[in-house]
Each structure stands twice: as structure tokens, then as C-alpha cells.
């Protein structure tokens, strides 16, 4: 996973071939179902997503990616199991702490939701390039200037991190101590963050000129170089997914979605 392509995994699976907007709608559908429908759907979703991952050859990567939310999921489970307010049904006592059934239930459901959301998002990111997604959105009317901002920010992050590290070195070479009392460390913030902000503003000036020179400020009339493939199957898949989203919302609101 490089910094500029994020989670993206190079591949040719059926998931890779789907149009970015189809996948975005699919993600939206899964998220809505996760948070609006009864908790039993979580089990179905996990199974379905695992199946999708396997069929796209991404099962191993998915398993490896699970370490990212591991701490969060554990925290959700533990904090809620042991510290659920108003709990009465104690299952397990460990000294002054006790696991309650309400807490465990709530914790499991919450963690389950986060888990499904994570899996769906990460599968989306494994198979979709930000550039393609944004180009697809721009083709349908989104602002290409915002798309530029997003793509540019992604590419600039690693450079900025390197720069922050250089500044840390450079200021220490001028005698700035980064260890010591709390007060001293707080006072080191301005000499360290100052060059990041001010130095970046100088860059911003030059980059503004460079972009202007290439017509960035010009009004509408932009054409696109990058072409995103839209397979015919997606043309009917997308409306189906939209209907699915609406169905989930309706179900949640009218009565099927409780608990």
C-alpha cells in the first residue's frame, strides 16, 4: 500500500471491473443496512462480504487488513461489556469489575456494525482508484476543482510528512530540545510547526501560479483525459442498488428496523 494509492490492490477481479459509482452505491447500501436494520442482518452481511472478498481473490488481504480496526473493535467490546450503564444482569465477575449481558450485547452489536462498515469500505478501497472514482463523479456533475483538491492532498501527504521530519532535524540542530518538562515541550510546538505552515505557504504561492498558468482558474469547458470504463451490467445494477437503499430506509422507518 503506497501512500498515493492507499489501499488499492492491483487486480482484474470482477469487483475491479465494476464502475466506481456502482461500488459506491453498493457501499452506501451496506452502510445503510448495517446501521438501520436489526442486528441479525449483520451476520448476513458479514457472510455476504466475505463471500465477495473470496470471489474477488481478496480474502487474504482482507484478513491482513483486519489489524487496522483491531484496537477499536476490542475497545468497543471491552468498554461496553464491563462498563455498560444501568446493567443488571451480571455474567462474569472479575474482582470489582463485572461483565454484564446488556453490555456484552450492546458491545457486540456496535463492534459488529463497525466491523461490517470497515470490511465494506476496505473492499471498496481495495478495488477502486481514487482517481477513477473522482473522474466518474466529475463526469456526473461534481466539481472538478474539489476532485483536484482531494487527489492533490493525497499526493502531498507523504511529502509533508518528510518535511515535518526534516524540520524536526533542522530545529534540533539549532539547539531546540524536544525532551524535557511539559512546558518546554509545549514551547517547542511553535518552532516546529511554524516552518511547516510558513514554508508551505511559500510553496502554495508558487503552486498557485503554476496552476493558473495551466488554465486551472478558467471557467467551465473542461474535458477529461482519464476515461472510466462503464460495463453494461452496471447500468442496471446501479438502479437496483438505489432501490435497495430506499427499501432499507423505508423498512427502518416503518417498523422492521427496531432494536
Amino acid at each position, binding site marked *: 500500500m503506497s501512500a*498515493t*494509492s492507499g489501499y488499492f490492490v492491483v487486480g482484474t477481479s470482477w469487483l475491479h471491473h465494476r464502475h466506481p459509482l456502482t461500488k459506491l452505491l453498493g457501499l452506501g447500501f451496506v452502510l445503510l443496512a448495517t446501521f438501520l436494520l436489526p442486528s441479525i442482518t449483520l451476520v448476513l452481511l458479514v457472510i455476504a462480504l466475505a463471500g465477495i472478498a473470496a470471489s474477488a481473490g481478496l480474502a487474504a488481504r482482507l484478513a491482513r487488513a483486519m489489524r487496522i480496526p483491531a484496537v477499536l473493535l476490542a475497545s468497543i467490546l471491552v468498554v461496553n461489556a464491563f462498563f455498560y450503564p444501568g446493567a443488571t444482569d451480571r455474567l462474569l465477575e472479575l474482582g470489582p469489575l463485572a461483565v454484564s449481558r446488556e453490555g456484552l450485547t450492546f458491545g457486540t452489536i456496535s463492534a459488529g456494525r463497525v466491523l461490517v462498515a470497515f470490511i465494506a469500505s476496505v473492499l471498496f478501497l481495495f478495488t477502486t*482508484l481514487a*482517481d477513477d472514482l473522482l473522474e466518474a463523479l466529475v463526469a456526473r456533475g461534481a466539481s472538478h476543482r474539489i476532485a*483536484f483538491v482531494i*487527489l*492533490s492532498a493525497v*499526493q*502531498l501527504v507523504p*511529502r509533508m510528512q518528510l*518535511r515535518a521530519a*526534516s*524540520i524536526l*532535524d*533542522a*530545529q*534540533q*540542530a*539549532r*539547539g*531546540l*530540545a*524536544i*525532551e524535557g518538562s511539559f512546558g518546554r515541550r509545549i514551547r517547542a510546538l*511553535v*518552532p516546529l510547526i*511554524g*516552518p511547516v505552515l*510558513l*514554508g508551505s*505557504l*511559500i*510553496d502554495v504561492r*508558487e*503552486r*498557485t*501560479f*503554476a*496552476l*493558473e*498558468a*495551466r*488554465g*486551472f*482558474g*478558467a*471557467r467551465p*469547458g*473542461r*474535458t*477529461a*483525459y*482519464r*476515461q472510466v470504463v462503464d460495463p453494461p451490467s452496471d447500468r442496471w445494477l446501479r438502479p437496483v442498488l438505489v432501490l435497495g437503499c430506499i427499501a432499507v430506509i423505508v423498512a427502518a422507518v416503518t417498523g422492521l428496523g427496531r432494536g
Partner: protein
Amino acid sequence: MTETTTRGIAPIAALRLAGLSVRYPGQRSPSLDSVDLEVQAGELVGVSGRTGAGKSTLALAAGGFLPRVVRATVTGSAAVGGIDATSLDPRALLGHVGIVFATPANQLSASKQTVREELAFGLENLGVDRADMDGRISTVLVRLGIANLADREPLTLSGGEQQRVAIASIVVMGTSLLVLDEPTAQLDPVGAADVGALLAELARGGTAVLVVEHDPTILGQTSRMVLLESAKAVGSGEPGYVLGSRVAGLYGLPAPTLVRLAELAEMDPALAFDEAAIVANLSSHGPRLAPGAEPSLSIGAWEAARDRPVPVAQVQELAHRYPNGVEALRGVSLRFAPGEAAVILGQNGSGKTTLAKHLNGLLRPDRGDVQFDGVSTRNLRVDELSATVGFVFQNPDDQLFERTVEREVSFGPRNLGWNAATVRQLVERALDAVGLSAVGGTNPYDLDLSRRKLVSLASVLAMNPSILVLDEPTTGQDPVGTERVGAVVRGMRDAGRTVIAITHNMEFAAAHFDRVILMREGIVIADGPPSELLSAPNQALLASTGLTPPPAARIASALGLTLVPRTAAGLIEALTARR
């Protein structure tokens, strides 16, 4: 139609500035004062001058950025291909002119995955039909020699490659005028030479090119250039003439070595950059004119106060491998005695910067040790070592953050815990050494890059270091600034302190340092005085590291001189004596 044109209806100039004056809001004096300049299609024209003379303002005006993007009061006229360059309409000049600046990475949109798409960026904004884009892009890729980079990620390219991509992104838009503001300032000699050749080739192909530069190799390729001084155009003509003592010399700018030699040999200014012609001329006639007084800059050598004992710096069997597996140093042993001025030369990746960073603890060795007077630095923190070793980083913007230059320079000594009176004295001395005493109250970021680099140098000098390490002190520096840095090096050395510099600038290395250390692939391959290392027998060794000796040394070897002169003055002396 042919008859009409031969009868003298002048073609519309690609760029025409007439009586152009520019004043920025809040500034008392104008940044450009009644400047006239014309550039025709197919011409490569240069602009040079000291810091603050108005070069960047000229570039911005030519690019149509004033007053649309940068607020300024503009009088007189500026026209690109007949179109008013002071127009407020963003589409007016689109596709007619483009500007490239000094920092390569800032010229890229940083939003595209490949060089090909990067080139397409401008075409997208122009609204060019998708079907036409590929053809135009391929043509330009080939023309600028970057076809092999077509599918690379732009931000991962080297500086020189990025500048070529930046130029290509403008050229692909079909611009008739290309303006460049110090395009080679951040590049190494190879990258700079590349860009120079590219500009010449573009001009030959019919583009009008206006380049603002200090680098004589670029200016030497222009057919005509203009010298700016205090917002006015004070000289124009061939570079060999304008950069010589009769024009640039009047304003205290040292002439480049080749130009100086051509003058002394009373050669035609058109041949001032032709090394072969100079050699031929000098070998048959010798210098015709007496050298006379050197038009030197009025910089006194700065004497560092001799009040600190300077340790012996010893590097023993140093080896360092980066986390990504690259072995940057593979066993380097060096000893620096107090009062030595040593320069480390080598290509990117030779390990020179890695070595320097071990000297003040920024990097820790995997094997081997760094010792001062026999005491290992292993357990000392970077900020603790900063009292002894002053490290001047290449990019001053990694350090500057204070409101004024004075406060900035006092940051280092304040960190070292000295009292207010001592700090004030050190700051004064440091600012004096770099010639910035007059701008003590200015915001450092309101100064241009060359002066910011001097501020950065001053801020380290104010810490009164025993050992001074300079990382690429001349990149982005103008000739006057380079001379100042040289004076500081000499002053430190004369005061018994140790100076170690890393540089690509061969003239700077030869002129101010007594010891040259050549590195390649993590080891030292040569170590000796410049007279030895830059002489003819060592040319092959030097070439293996991608470096060429400075012009004075090259000409001396070509003339068969046994003693290699370190500077142009030295060469002239030797030639005069020989006569």
C-alpha cells in the same frame, strides 16, 4: 502574402514590454521602472541581475500574472502575441504563455498518477477534444526527451526530470511564449545542463523563450540578454558583453570565468562562452589586456572570534544503512583537523549528505563511530551537539518561523542558554558576516530565497560553532550570495575553525576550500587538495562521479599549465606571469 511580409510589416512580437512599471501595494519604490523588452518567436532571451532587481516581477508580468493574480499597480504596456498581458480575464492568455518557476515539485499539479496525465492536465483545462489529446501528448513527450518517463509518477522523478515535465506541460498547450524564473536554481549541474539544452532546442523549434537566471551556462546559450538593476534595465546585448566588466561589472557583479577570460583575450563577445575558441585564442596569443583591478564585491573577509577550542573531528569506519535497505555509507574514515576547510563532492546517492548528518548526530552509525577529540558522540543528543557543530540545512524554509530576521538569528543562541547581551552581540556579528544587517527587522519570508539562505546561515553562525557543516550552500544562491558564503568559509577557517561543505558547485569548491573529498557509492575514492584533484590526470576519476572540473581548471589543463589554478584570478595570474 509573401510580398507583404518582406515589405516590412513587423511580425507581432511574442512578448513586448514597453515602458512597463510595476509597484506592489505598500511598497514605496517600484519593482520595475520603465522597462522595454521584446522577444520574438524562436529567440532565447535571458534576464539577470542582483537580488531585488526586479527579475521575478518581470517574469510575472510577462506571464500575465500582474495585476490579475498578484495585486500591483501596472503602468506602461505588456503584450503577449499582441494580447494585453495585464488583462483581468483568466482566459485571455491561456495557451499563449506559460511560466515555470524554480522549485520543480511545485510546478506539478500533484493530482495525476502519470506524466502522461500530467501533460493532459493543461489540455483538459483548455477544453481540448479527448480525441486530440493523445497525439499532442506523444509529440511533446518525444520532443522533450521524456518519452521514457511517460508512465512514471511525477512526484517520484528527480528534480531535473520534474522540471522537464513542467516545461512539457506548458509546451503541450501550444504556448508561443515560455517564461522561466530561475528554472535551474534547485538542480544539480547535470539537471541544469539538461534544461539549458532543452530551452535552446525549444527556441530552435520556434517557441519564444524568456529565461530569468544566474547560471552562466544557461545565460551563455541565450542570443541576447538584459541586465536589471534597481528595477531598471541597465544593459542589453549579447551575454558575453552584458555579463562582462563593462556592464555587469559596473554594478558589482563578478563576471563568469569564461567571459572574463574572453575579455582579457579581447575576443568577440559572441564567442565568450566558447571554451574551444578561448583555449585556442589564449594559447596562441595569451591575454591581451592587463587584468587590472578585480571587480570584486565589497565584502570584507569576516573574522570569526577566536574564542573557542576547536576539537579534532574523527570519523572511523562509518557505515550506515537506511531502513529501506540502501547502504549509504560503506566504511568511511576521515580526520578533520581544526582550521580545515574541506569540501565533499559526489553525485546524489554517493553518501555525502549521509556522512555530514552523522557529524551532528542527526543520523547514528550502524558501525563505526564519530568522535570529537577522542570522545564519542554516540550518547549525545542532536541539540546537545549543536553547541559544537553548526549544521546549515539546504532548505532554509525548514527552519524559519520568526517575525523578524533578528529574532530568527537569535533563536539558536537563545536555545544554547546565553544571556541577552551575548545573544545580541552574536546576532549582530552574524548578520554583519552575511551582509544582512540592514534587514534585521524584516520578515524572513518577505526576502527572496538567496537571502533566506543567508539568514539560515547567519542563524547557525550566531551559535558560534567550532565546526561548521554546510549542505549545498550555493543552490538557489545568486553570485553575490555565493561570494558571501565563500567569505564566511574563509573567515571561519582563518579563525581556526573547521568547515565542511557538501556541494555540486565546482567553482565554489575550488575557490574556497583546501581539501577535496570525493565520494562514490558510500566510500571515499579521493582525498586531497584541489590543485591535485582537479588536475588533468584526475579528470577520469572526477568524471566517474559525474562531475567536471571548473572552467578555470579545464582551460588550464587545455593550455597545458602544470599548476591548476583555483579561480579565474589565479588562472589569469598564471597566464600573465607566463607571458
